[in-house]
């Protein structure tokens, strides 16, 4: 079931983008597993099953509103419910993870969008799923990832004058300034 969904998503996304963006690692057979392991690790896997659920990894240039719209409107995919938007700071790059769910088809999708750490920027999906409104603002607030296309991108949890983005790994908590020490 999930494997089929994954295949479907891969073909749809690759179609929409007109190139082979999503690559699946072919399922390992026992003979292959030994010898070719090292070579395979070099190909970066961009679509896989994560705990039984499809996950696709995209670059921020490839991720666009049209793609998001396609994911929502395509009758076979029909991802109409945005569950969660997560921002992650890996030290070499940043990521925004969209968790999508289809209330009709009952399938899931993790969309991971990679963005460079220096100028993190991911196209906002608020016009497609309004649910992203606050969640993207939160990520902007705590991780400093820009969301071009968001109608009201400003700090939400911290006050407007706050400096820095606390959830970044290099953020130094100034306990003195916060009055904690």
């Amino acid at each position, binding site marked *: 079931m999930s494997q089929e969904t994954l295949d479907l998503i891969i073909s749809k996304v690759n179609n929409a983008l007109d190139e082979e963006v999503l690559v699946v690692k072919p399922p390992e057979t026992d003979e292959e597993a030994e010898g070719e392991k090292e070579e395979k690790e070099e190909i970066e896997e961009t679509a896989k099953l*994560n705990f039984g659920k499809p996950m696709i990894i995209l670059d921020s240039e490839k991720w666009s509103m049209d793609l998001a719209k396609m994911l929502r409107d395509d009758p076979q995919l029909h991802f109409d419910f945005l*569950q*969660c938007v997560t921002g992650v700071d890996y030290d070499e790059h940043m990521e925004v993870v969209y968790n999508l769910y289809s209330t009709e088809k009952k399938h899931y999708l993790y969309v991971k969008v990679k963005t460079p750490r220096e100028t993190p920027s991911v196209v906002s999906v608020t016009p497609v799923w309004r*649910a992203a409104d606050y969640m993207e603002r939160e990520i902007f607030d705590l991780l400093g990832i820009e969301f071009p296309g968001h109608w009201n991108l400003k700090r939400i*949890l911290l006050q407007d004058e706050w400096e820095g983005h606390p959830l970044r790994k290099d953020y130094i908590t100034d306990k003195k300034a916060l009055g904690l020490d």
Partner: protein
Amino acid sequence: MAIKTETMTLNMGPQHPSTHGVFRLVVDVDGETIKRVEPVMGYLHRGSEKLAERFVYTQFIPYTDRLDYMNAMTNNYVYCAAVEKLLEWEIPERAEYLRVITMELNRIASHLVWWGTYLLDIGALSPFLYAFRDRDHCLDLLNEISGARMTFNYMRIGGVKWDSPDGWIDRVKEKVKVLRENINEYDTLVTGNEIFQSRTIGVGKLTKEQILDWGISGPLARASGLKMDIRKDEPYSIYDRFDFDIPTQEEGDVYARYKVRIAELYESLKIIEQACEQIPEGDIITKKGKRIMMIKPPAGEAYTRAEASKGEIGVYAISNGKNKPYRIKLRRPSFVNVAILQELLIGKNIQDLVAIFGSLDIVLGEVDA
């Protein structure tokens, strides 16, 4: 003849009787009609997600209690379940049953608090005290099993902390009967009341499309006719073993939300009863789970979700193989649900603002994390 009017900016909150905590609504009103709403939050922000990166896995559990402090058990559960998913651990049967019973008891407590405070917002005084009396029945039981009344810290990665004390299951069964009677009484007191109906029917309507667009979940979604309950859609824990319904309403107004929540109380009681009948003997925590400082999930990431009383609560856990989480993202239902306010309140009056805002059932600890 058009009367020349002027809008007035009204700051509702951060301290206001009906914002249920430190929440601020900047409202532009023309007379009593609302022209613009801007929710302002963050007064209770404690940086839970940042804190999580500092702790070993188990140490974060008491902090999940403090997100939605009305429904802490489910928060406990969803965090533990996320880590368990990364670890791929099997949970002992008895632990699962205890988890379900405590979660459902807590859901009842949470809905009762909503019921009481909501009617207080609407202007009825007594339901608040009746609801808190019955909520105390639930909290007493939870206190007995977990050692705290609200911040339970009961679940552990791999099981639960305590086994049920002697006779606890029987006491739960008794209390279920008491609660059922009392909830019936609430129905008589409030549901049929015409004044209450006039305050709620047709107020704050949410369509199915809006619900999906804004990612709203839980009783709010079910009141708009969306049959969406994670306990059924994707049965976590052992919810597939119980026979219960998902109450839905088509109207999507405040009254529908009220009815959905009341119906859910009965369903939760049903689940508790069944779980109390079925509960087996056995371990309450996996062997490895007992070494609470030594839990090291393999590198990976997983999104786990559960049905909290406010909606879908989710944890996106990323592990890098160390004993501390790399990133814990909390999908807090209140935080997502509250976003609808900026659209929903336009054109309503101040009285409806209170009725609608209360019906969303948000907890500020969860909104601000």
